[in-house]
């Protein structure tokens, strides 16, 4: 065993990490080598002095109690997270309430009545429904095939409530489904400028067409898809 190895092993010896054989070999070298023996003695004395000095730290009185108090405080449920959560819930509740006040609650009964309103399939039934349910006198477009009537109700048109009937055809000559909306305007409320009478208007989308029919007491404004109104009209018997 050389001196370099011995000086390395001295550290392990101090840490108690040498086995019997290593300790024996180390001691054998120290007995024979005065330099290493002196070095070992110096190390041992310094180690002892350091080990004696290191723990000489006065522990403050009452430290244990203060640690236990800190632990008890840490175990207590903290109010702040709960308070914050409660505040958040309260704010959300108020916000929801205000939002609810500013909007209209959906009434399923209204929806059902609207769907029910479209079930009448004859011109007379439609005229009666508008008279009774909407207090509107109107004349249904009898040349239309009411078996194709999809729905009807009053809608806003230039500041007035007017009847609108929607017809749905599964196929015309092009074998394509199409829709026709018929607005029934009373002549006591609306009039047509001269040039519009009997005219056809093609919309910019090129998929809708407008047709106007003046019956005297009522005006029909018809907007439809498909190339003509023919699929929506009642066929001659």
């Amino acid at each position: 065993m050389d001196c370099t190895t011995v000086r390395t092993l001295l550290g392990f010896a101090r840490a108690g990490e040498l086995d019997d054989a290593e300790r024996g070999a180390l001691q054998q070298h120290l007995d024979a080598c005065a330099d290493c023996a002196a070095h070992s003695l110096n190390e041992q004395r310094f180690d002892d002095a350091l080990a004696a000095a290191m723990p000489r730290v006065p522990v403050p009185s009452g430290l244990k109690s203060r640690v236990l108090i800190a632990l008890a405080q840490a175990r207590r449920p903290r109010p702040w997270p709960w308070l914050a959560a409660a505040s958040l819930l309260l704010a959300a509740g108020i916000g929801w309430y205000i939002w609810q006040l500013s909007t209209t609650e959906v009434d399923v009964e209204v929806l059902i009545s609207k769907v029910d309103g479209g079930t009448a399939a004859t011109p007379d039934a439609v005229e009666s429904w508008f008279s009774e349910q909407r207090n509107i006198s109107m004349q249904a477009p009898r040349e239309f095939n009411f078996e194709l009537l999809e729905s009807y109700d009053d809608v806003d048109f230039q500041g007035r409530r007017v009847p609108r009937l929607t017809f749905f055809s599964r196929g015309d000559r092009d074998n394509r489904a199409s829709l026709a909306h018929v607005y029934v305007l009373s002549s006591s409320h609306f009039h047509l400028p001269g040039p519009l009478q009997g005219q056809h208007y093609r919309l910019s989308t090129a998929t809708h067409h407008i047709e106007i029919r003046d019956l005297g007491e009522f005006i029909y404004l018809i907007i439809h898809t498909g190339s003509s109104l023919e699929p929506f009209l009642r066929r001659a018997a």
Partner: protein
Amino acid sequence: MRWPGTKRKVEALVQAHYAALYRFAFRLSGTASEAEDLTQEAFCQAQAKFGQLRDVHKARGWLFTILRNVYLHKLRDRKTANAVALDEVGDIPDRLPDPLPDIEPQRLQIALSEIPEAFRTPLILFYFEDFSYRDIAEQLEVPLGTVMSRLARAKAFLKARLLVPVAADAARGEA
């Protein structure tokens, strides 16, 4: 976390280790007030993650690791301008005075505070708590060789700081 069982066990840990933990904290930080803060914080963290302690026989090392991590966390934002390079060690006499005078705790603390933490901690653990090289390596998560190297350099630094004036005085006395 449910506290009843944990409370009793953590309080037992306090009873057994609070003084050692405080001394370790003092040697690490150098001030009584900081050492007390570190001790309290370490126990609070130990309580919070008590479930991580799988072997109660390793509680002491576990607590020391927690305290060191708390200390390192606090140290992160702090300047360590007082730490010196350990290579700046003066000459160490071949023979030390016999008998070797006691090392004054205050001088020891001043010298310790000059050592970078990576060297100071293994030194404290080794001399103060008799941790083995392997325990220290495990705690610091460094190889065994690194622990030995750091210990040797830190010890040489302390020897120069603490004993050279004593040796010089002894030599003057003999002359």
